[in-house]
Each structure stands twice: as C-alpha cells, then as structure tokens.
C-alpha cells in the first residue's frame, strides 16, 4: 500500500521537473507552429481565408488545435512552475537571478500569447489589436509622443506580417536564449542536466549506451510527464477545436479577451482602457520584487505571501471577468462618437 508520504514525495519531485516540462511544451509549440506556418497567410486580405482553410482540413485543423492546446498547457505549467519556485523561496543570488530571468521570459511569453491572438485574424484578433495594441499605444502616446512611431510601424498593410515575424522567429529565439541564461542560475536546471552531461562524452566516444540516461529518476519522470502532456494535448486537440470566430468587423467590441487576460478586463470595467497599460507592468514588477522580500531562513515570509496574494487576486478577478457580462471599452475610438 502506497503511503501518503510517498505520494507526497513523488508529487514534490514532479513539481521540481515542471520547468523541464515547459521546455518540452515549447518544443511542441515550435514544431506545430512551423507546420502551421506552411498554411497560414499574413496578408490581411488572405488571413481569414487561410485560417478557414486550415480549419476545414482535418490534418491542419489538428495541427492548429495541437498548437492551441499546447500553448494553454504551456501557460498552465508555467504558472505552476512559478508557484513552485515562489513557494520554495528564490533566495540567494543564483536563484534570484534565475527568478528575474524567468520574469523576463514571462513577459516574452505574454507577448507571444498576445501576438498569437492577433495571428488568428478573426473578430477576437481584431478586437485584441484595437484594444490592446492601438488602445495602449494611444494612451502611452499622450505622454510619450514617439510611441506613435510604434503604432504606425504595426498599422500598415504589412502589420500582420511584422507581428508574424515577432511571433514565429524573434520571440521564440529570445525565449530559447533566456532559457540558457535561466539554466545558468537555476540549481534545479543544472541538477536535471547533470545526467545528460554525464552520458554525453562516453556516448560521443561510442562507449556508453544513451539509454543509460533513462536510469536517472529525473529523466524518467520528465519522459513520463512529456508523454502525459503529449497524450493530453492530443486528446484535447481531437475532442475540442481551437476557437475561430467569424471574420472581423472594425470599430466595435463584442468579445472578451482570452482567459489569461481576463483579470485586466475586471479593472477595465471600472476604469476604462487605462488599466491595460498600467496593470500588466505592475504585476510583472510585483513578481520581480518577490526575491527582495525573500529571506534565507526557514518558513514563509513576505515573498511567499506577496506571490500568493497577487496570484489569488489575479485568479479571482479573472473568475469574475469570465462570469460577468461582455462590456465594450474601446468603441469611443469609432469616429463620430465623443469620449465617454
């Protein structure tokens, strides 16, 4: 009979390798994204029809669904990984630097998810573009006029193509680079890599079977988790299609943002569009400040409390934004209507 303590120990070890699972999920995203890129057109006149064609063909639809659910699971696992690290207290120089590099990766992931929403080219994509990109740059431009250069750069006919370059090339490369940097500082990363380092040289010499690496429990756990994730994504891809709304109509707002941005909507319902510019940087700053409140002693401290409170608030705000009615925040941009 398996004891509770053994189960707890196994789960804790599983929690330790979540970072490795994130890397595997990133690999899934890159592969599925490359396959999708063969069928996707970033020309605005053809974008929606290319998405329609992708969803009409069962194979490309599966690839798209796979990409969608892999991104959701990626974000989910990232959240759990952050929680594990926050609860095990990123104190000490190395773990602090690893945490801060991780926050940088979090920002890149958020940008990647937003650009992925733009890529869809449907009603939600256009509203995301109007709401988050045009809206936020419009607000910032009131204080920093040079921001209009950024707006203009991503507002012309090749806007989607430029977003596509960021989504498909620049941000993934930046993420992979930061993963290497993250690994230099994260002790768990180094520990998980040690079995691979040990077998590399003998394998190159031809004297050691690569299969020996699977004798290590961490590697086996990573493999099992990856297979479970692959299975889960495959099942979800076959059973639940990725969303594709009807073609976009400009100047109105009839949809809610994706689930990972709903917490901002909660505040927008109160204060209009301005929270969209303020809240995400505030949240990233709160996360970045956590190591500064983490002390190198046993027990929870303010670093842990700040993380738990911040995430609890984000989740609760998201719940209520999901349950609340859809509210338009940007339609005063439409010409002919005065500001509220």
């Amino acid at each position, binding site marked *: 009979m398996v004891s509770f303590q053994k189960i707890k120990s196994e789960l804790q070890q599983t929690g330790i390798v979540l970072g490795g699972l994130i890397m595997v999920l990133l690999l899934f995203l890159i592969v599925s994204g490359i396959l999708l890129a063969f069928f996707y057109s970033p020309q605005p006149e053809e974008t929606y029809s290319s998405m329609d064609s992708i969803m009409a063909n069962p194979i490309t639809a599966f690839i798209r669904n796979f990409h969608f659910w892999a991104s959701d699971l990626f974000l989910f696992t990232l959240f759990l990984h952050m929680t594990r690290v926050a609860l095990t207290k990123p104190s*000490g120089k190395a773990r602090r630097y690893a945490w801060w590099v991780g926050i940088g990766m979090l920002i890149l992931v958020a940008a990647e998810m937003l650009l992925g929403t733009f890529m869809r080219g449907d009603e*939600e994509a256009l509203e995301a573009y109007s709401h988050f990109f045009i809206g936020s740059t419009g607000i910032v431009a009131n204080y920093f006029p040079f921001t209009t250069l950024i707006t203009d750069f991503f507002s012309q006919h090749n806007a989607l193509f430029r977003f596509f370059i960021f989504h498909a090339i620049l941000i993934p490369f930046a993420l992979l680079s930061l993963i290497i940097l993250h690994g230099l500082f994260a002790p768990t990363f180094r*520990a998980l890599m040690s079995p691979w380092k040990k077998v590399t040289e003998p394998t190159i010499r031809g004297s050691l079977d690569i299969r020996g690496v699977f004798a290590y*429990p961490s590697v086996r756990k990573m493999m099992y988790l990856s297979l479970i994730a692959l299975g889960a994504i495959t099942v979800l891809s076959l059973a639940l299609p990725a969303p594709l709304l009807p073609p*976009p109509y400009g100047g109105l707002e*009839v949809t809610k943002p994706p689930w990972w941005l709903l917490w901002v909507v909660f505040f927008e319902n109160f204060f209009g569009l301005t929270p969209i510019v303020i809240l995400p940087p505030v949240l990233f700053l709160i996360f970045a400040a956590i190591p500064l409140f983490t002390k190198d002693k046993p027990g929870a401290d303010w670093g842990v409390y700040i993380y738990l409170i911040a995430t609890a608030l984000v989740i*609760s705000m998201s719940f209520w934004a999901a*349950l609340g009615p859809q509210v338009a925040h940007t339609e005063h941009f439409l010409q002919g209507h005065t500001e509220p």
Partner: protein
Amino acid sequence: MQNTDLGRGSFLDGSVFGRAKPDYSTSYMKRMVPRIRVQAVFLFYALLCGFVIIPPGAVFAHGDEAPAETLYSQTQIGLPDSRQGHAHGGMVGDQSGNFDVSISSSGPYQAGIPQALRFTITKKATGEQVKEFVQTQTKYLHLIIVSSDLAEFYHEHPDLESDGTFLLKDFAFKREVPYTLYFDLSPSGSGDDILLRRDIGVGQNVYIAPFLKSTQFPVASQGLQVRLFLDPGEPKTIGNTFFTFTLSDAANGAPVSDLEAYLGVPAHLVMISQKSFDYIHMHPSGNFPTDPVKLDALRFGPNIQFQTTFPEEGFYKGWLQVLRGGNIVVLAFVISVEKGTGLTRDQIATNVHFVQAREENRSIVKFALITLFMCGMILLFYPKRSSISSLPPSSLPVVASPASPQASATSPVQPASDSKQNQPPQQPNNT
C-alpha cells in the same frame, strides 16, 4: 518521560493504531501550528479565489457602445479601417438635447450691414442661462456660419461677455439668403463638447440650394495649393476615411512646411453634408504639445492628416483652414461619399455568440483547474518552519544520507532554508 498533553489512547498520539507514541517535547499547539498554517493558507486561497468576493466588475460595469443602428464593415489588421485612432472631433447633427441657444441682434438681419449678434446659452429643462464655459482649442465658442448654398463659410469666435453671453460684433451677412449657424462649445460641467444649430433668414431670405460636384485637385487659394489623398479612394458611410492634404506654394509648387499652429492645432477641417447639413469638425491626427509656447515654436506641413466617419451618403463640402505668415488661409473642396454595406452590432454579436460562449465556459473550467492545482502546490511546497528544531537531539529521527541511491530516488524535497539549493547529486537507480 515525555511530556504530552494528549493523554493515552488519543487519536492524535498514534497509539490507537498501535504505533509508539512520538517523543515530542513541544506542546500540542507548537506541533499543530505548522499544519494549521498550511490549512489556513489553503483556506485563504480558496476563499480569495472568487467564491465569496462580490463581483463589482459585473455590477458596476459600464459600456461604451455605439448606437445600435451603426453599421460596421469587414476589415482586418493592417487595413485602413482597423486603425481605430483616437477620435479627433466629429460632431454630427444638432445635439441640443440639453441646451438651447437664443440669438438677438442689434436690428433686423440685413445683408451687407454690419450687425452685433448676441448669443445666450440656456439649459433646456429649466431655462436657466449657462454662464460658464470651458475653452476648446483656445476658444470658448467656435461659431461656423454657412449660407444655404454652402458658398459662404465663416469661422468666428464671439467674445464671452461678463454676463455669460457671447457677442459677435460687426458681422455682415453678404446675401439675402438663409444662413445656418453652428455653435461648437463646452458648457462648464457638461463634461463634453456640444453642438447647437440654428437657421436664420437674412433680408428677403431667398433659399438657394447647394449645387455641389466633386473637386478636381489641386485647388489653390491665397497663395497655397492643396492636393488631397483619400483612403479609401471612394469614401463610404461605414468605416474610417483618412484625409491626407499635401500643401505647396501656388507660385512655384514647393512644399510648404511653415504652417503655424491655428487655435492649438496645425489645421482645422470642417465638413457639412449637402443632404442634412450635418456638421463634422476635425483636427489633425497625431499628438501636439498643449503648452502654447512650445506649440507656437512648431511649424507644420506639407502633409496634414485627418480621419472621420460619414453619417450619410452624398456630397460633403469641406473647408480646410491653416495659418501661414499670420494669415488664415481657407481652402474649400467637395467630396462624394457613397453608401456602404455592413452589419449592425447585434448581427455581429449573434455571429460570434456560439464560439464566444464556449470559450467563456472553457475559461471558467481553466480557472477552476488552476485554483485546484494552486491549492495542491501550496500543500506540497508551502515552506514550513522546521518542527524538529526545538526537539532534543535524542528524539531526532534518523535521516537517510542524501548520497545513497534510495535517498536520491525517494527523498522529499530539501527544505527551503538551504539558500544554496543544491540538489543531491543524482545517481542511477540500480534496479
């Protein structure tokens, strides 16, 4: 003899299950505190995650929706209609729902004779006079006067008198035709600009209908020549229309880049529809300094851009006003707007409803799963103060060496108090 508050045979001391009583020297509460703390955190988290918080965002949510009959056109990111910029003016029709204006003059309206016109703004509901106003584009009142055939255009700024009325001194109507007056102002406390419109007849009041046809560019006036680029090339009643005026010197064709700020912006554009005499007042796209000193130091041109939407199809006459060398230059032109096709908000909302509702349900499931997993993470990894730190050494349990294979395979996570956070060296599991 260990000190325990539990007594024999209690559930908590384990003796019910035949296990030896643990050798604790701390009190019951000191042993229970770490467990309670984790449970308290768990409970706090579950409560905070949305089950008891009142949803103020849903209760007090306010929308910002356009009128229901507004038509929307299909577009895409990167196409002109997707560039929903900040609104730069655009009033349409008489908006005197809450306010009224009365006009008095020094005598009957006569053509060719300078007259003093006094305007009094009142609240429609109470008849109370409004005496305080907010400046917009450096003036309290922008008065646009056009003749019935749209051949004459005047942009005046009556003075705000001490009694709260506006006085336009020495204004002479040129012909004995009807004139339409547009009052563009912002009463203090109204929170917004309002537009009032009044028609007056001058002299014989002979109505002359506007006869408009589209202007062939370039057009010239007062030493300036202007070309207009429209996007889309054929404006429609739905979606944005972008105007790009390129100004050059009428004499030598050289681009003009020495335009001065006029009323706080590089230029003004007023358009009036032939059908309903709807009024649209636009300011250039872009951000400009509000400090008058900085603004006066800037020069503009040769390109000036505007954007607007048109409420109805038909001809529109426009007047572009710029300031050059201290002189106000007015350039008049006419464009044609076609009726566009599109869907209403309700139609679009109906189209997206199914997928949107499905995604909302999925979002709630995802948040529920996140909450569940978060609580699990707290139970697994919440950093506890060591409960054995105050125990005498003899009661400490034996801990397996971290270097042994069994320990590396099955040992729990090291306490968070280790700042080095070095994981034990991994050994293959020799099965």
